């Protein structure tokens, strides 16, 4: 008990905590702190800027805390020391209201500008490539609408080209995250969203589903490989030539809950295209506005057809959702 009474451990612990916070971030050079593209870089800069400002606050408060604890411990004060009866200090209180406000402004401005930047292509003058990333329990499906190919649990992208990931989910919400290329965005059924990423150089990165989706969620990892444009093109050509075509039935089977290995297909069925949202008029911020215009229609009558629950319900009068839906849509189109 002796060291406790002397209080030495307290200061050691406090100092240790500060050191861990201040220096701890340095040695790690993977993940978020290892940006490999313009999006991740922008977020990294913001993280570092906020961390620096926050460290200043940490240091100021920790020093004050330690000084006060050392100076005004009862055991260090004379027996007849009587604390003054002070109500407060308006000037000081205004100071420590104003300083946090300034800090909020200092973080808030780059936060807002970055938020708007991330909605746009990181390299607007380069021609982007679109890849549809769909999560299903418990695998990732990548479709290349321009190339017409499909991969499962891995994705290859051209380096130095902005990639527009069109995110959606077949079932549970997931989140598409490749930390070294940039932050994540959710995948949701019937609400496709866009995430811009770009890799500076060729390289291999770890991506994963980051929002819990049930039993094998931990296994929802995928690799992202950035290749030189020419290598990428020859890879596409090779997939087109050697990989099998995917039938409607195979795609349906792939969507069923379960885990699968890496797969490649030289084509995918029409039904596999990312569905558009079922709610006209809802403005989903993450979605491209121009894309909304050419939405063919809100076709979800096919969805969950094989669902056993639906069979029970179709017996109920007035509960035929697929029919009701279409009627609704028609009237709204008029």
């Amino acid at each position, binding site marked *: 008990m002796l060291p406790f009474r002397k209080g030495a451990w307290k200061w050691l612990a406090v100092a240790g905590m500060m050191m861990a916070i201040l220096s701890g971030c340095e040695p790690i050079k993977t993940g978020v702190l290892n940006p490999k593209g313009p999006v991740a870089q922008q977020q990294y800069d913001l993280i570092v800027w906020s961390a620096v400002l926050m460290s200043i606050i940490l240091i100021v408060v920790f020093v004050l805390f330690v000084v006060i604890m050392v100076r*005004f411990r009862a055991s260090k004060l004379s027996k007849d020391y009587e604390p003054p009866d002070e109500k407060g200090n308006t000037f000081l*209180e205004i100071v420590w*209201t104003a300083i946090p406000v300034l800090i909020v402004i200092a973080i808030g401005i780059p*936060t807002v500008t*970055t938020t708007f930047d991330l909605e746009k292509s990181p390299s607007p003058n380069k021609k982007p490539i679109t890849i549809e990333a769909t999560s299903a*329990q418990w695998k990732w499906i990548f479709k290349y609408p321009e190339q017409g190919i499909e991969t499962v649990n891995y994705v290859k992208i051209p380096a130095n080209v902005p990639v527009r990931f069109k995110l959606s989910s077949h079932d549970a919400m997931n989140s598409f995250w490749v930390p070294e290329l940039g932050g994540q965005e959710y995948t949701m*059924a019937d609400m496709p969203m866009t995430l811009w990423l770009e890799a500076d150089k060729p390289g291999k990165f770890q991506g994963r589903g980051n929002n819990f989706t049930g039993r094998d969620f931990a296994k929802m990892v995928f690799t992202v490989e950035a290749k030189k444009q020419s290598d990428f093109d020859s890879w596409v050509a090779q997939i087109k030539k050697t990989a099998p075509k995917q039938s409607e039935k195979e795609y349906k089977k792939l969507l069923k809950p379960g885990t699968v290995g890496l797969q490649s297909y030289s084509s995918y069925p029409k039904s596999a295209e990312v569905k558009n949202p*079922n709610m006209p008029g809802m403005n989903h911020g993450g979605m491209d506005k121009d894309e909304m215009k050419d939405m063919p229609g809100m076709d979800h009558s096919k969805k969950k057809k094989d669902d056993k*629950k639906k069979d029970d319900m179709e017996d109920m009068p007035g509960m035929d*959702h697929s029919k009701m839906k279409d009627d609704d849509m028609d009237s709204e189109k008029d």
Partner: protein
Amino acid sequence: MDLFNFKMPEQFIIMNNPLIIGAWISIILASVGIVFFVTKYKKWGYLWREWFTTVDHKKIGVMYILAALLMLFRGGFDAILMRTQLALPDMKVLDAQHYNEIFTTHGTIMILFMAMPFIIGLMNVGVPLQIGARDVAFPVLNAVSFWLFFVGAMVFNLSFVIGGSPDAGWTNYVPLSGSELTPGVGINYYLWGLQIAGIGTLATGINFFVTILKMRAPGMTLLRMPMFTWSTLVTSVIIIFAFPVLTITLALLTFDRLFGAHFFTIDAGGMPMMWANLFWIWGHPEVYIVILPAFGIFSDVISTFARKRLFGYHAMVISMVAISGLSFVVWVHHFFTMGNGPWINSIFSITTMLIAVPTGVKVFNWLFTMYKGRIETPAPMLWSLAFIPNFLIGGVTGVMLASAPADYQYHNSYFLVSHFHYVLIGGTVFGCMAGLYYWWPKIFDFKLNERISKWAFWIFIVGFNVCFLPMYLVGLQGMPRRIYTYKAEMGWTMWNFVQTIGAYLMGIGFILIVWAIIYSIRHEKRDRSGDPWHGRTLEWAIPSPPPHYNFSRMPSRITSADPYWDAKKRGESMFDENEPLKPIHMPNNDGMPIVMSGFMFIAGFGFVFEWLLIAFIGLLGVIGTMVWRSFKDYDADHYVQVEEIERDQAELQASLEGRS
């Protein structure tokens, strides 16, 4: 919907795992043991009269805290299991399903069945005494609140052994938690455990709101209330606005799951994202419900042990009100990554960062309360001191998380996990511990043993930081929350192992706290005089434990926020001893709350298994007990006679003289 359909879940009695079989054995042994000993020592009558039917806020507070400690054990055990599973890559302690259930129950139990009852228990113990009231405004409703909470917790915990636990996380996001992707009873347990406990909490909010506004002693204006009472008032307002949202949200998902509605389904016009919105419109205020009373406790404890008046009382009140207002306009920051659009994300980023302003004011005011003070460090003060640096770490990382584009990189990672554990443990749990140690010698006539408590404190604090600081780092390395295993090549192994060591240290700290309680009950010196800490507020002016009517005379000399301190300075008593004693109007004990909650349990169980006949019988019972109670309203109160008050005073006098 079929009243007579008694469908069975895949597994009714869960027995598929040695851990669960162990739980079964211990549940059966403990139940048999309790029944045996209570019967053997003929304590059923005592338990019924003194505890099960009590409406005394102090006893209800004790029951809340006892239940919270039990739930802390359960939630903590879940945490230890998770940390064991994650200590090394590819561990096989838990399989995926079991891990998913455990992180779900860990989160739900810790927030709703540990933090909430702990805080509400301390409110029950502290607030009426601090404002000079003899009970809360609605004593029977208070008992209803407790028993509904208790039944909710029991329903939720039953899932472990009967029918299967919820496994969609404490946030229970749809569509995963919908009946298509997660059939079975687990999610129903979540819905009904929370629903029943939530109704009790809403009643608590109303109860304390009215108590504080209407039942303060003469002279105690709003701006002379102790800070803990202020925090309870503000919290009550948040509860009144936030909990109805939870009630409705849970009810909507219940309709989806039980009766085939489509509020949150993917197809048929349902909107899964609406769940996230509604859940967090309740959920964010909810975390302020558990942190603000802790702030109140720290304010009272710090000024008591710095022997100095709280610095900037008005700023403390204003900042608390500001935080409560902001708590309702930040919920979107829980899902910046759901495609809300740049305007919405920007606005919610800024509102979230703004919370740092009033919170910063509070931190500096606490520091300057201690500045020029005379700081003593018994256990309640230790927990309060530890709060400042630890909560600050949680707070500054909170500001970092508030920046939406950066949050794209933190979201759902261990960075986030670490952040909310730093604020919830560093804030709420430390606050509960400070409050428990602080008011223990008010609830009972002895302190908790300092020596064991200091060991417990230091082991817990070190363990806490060893466990959670590395989580920031693995989070930045890309480790997501809620994964049950990871591969060695991810490079997360070392920090995960360190975290597990920290978790075990926290477990040892908890055991030592329990040991301090047991040891102190048997060995600590008794003292009924009632002011062991040289307190500043009203509760310390009455004996420990206080008589059931709290104040034999009403305090009459409240001229500041530290009335008892000022009275002691002037060498006066808080009470006018010349005033003759008068009979005291008190509420009667009532069996209705526990009976009604028993029916609520039946209803909850019926809804969980979708056995509607049983559910409706339970609901009818609930309504029936309310009707029954309305007819016996004339039997609700009594007067404590002057002779009894005099007898109590004589007894106290004898005990105090015996001591000296």
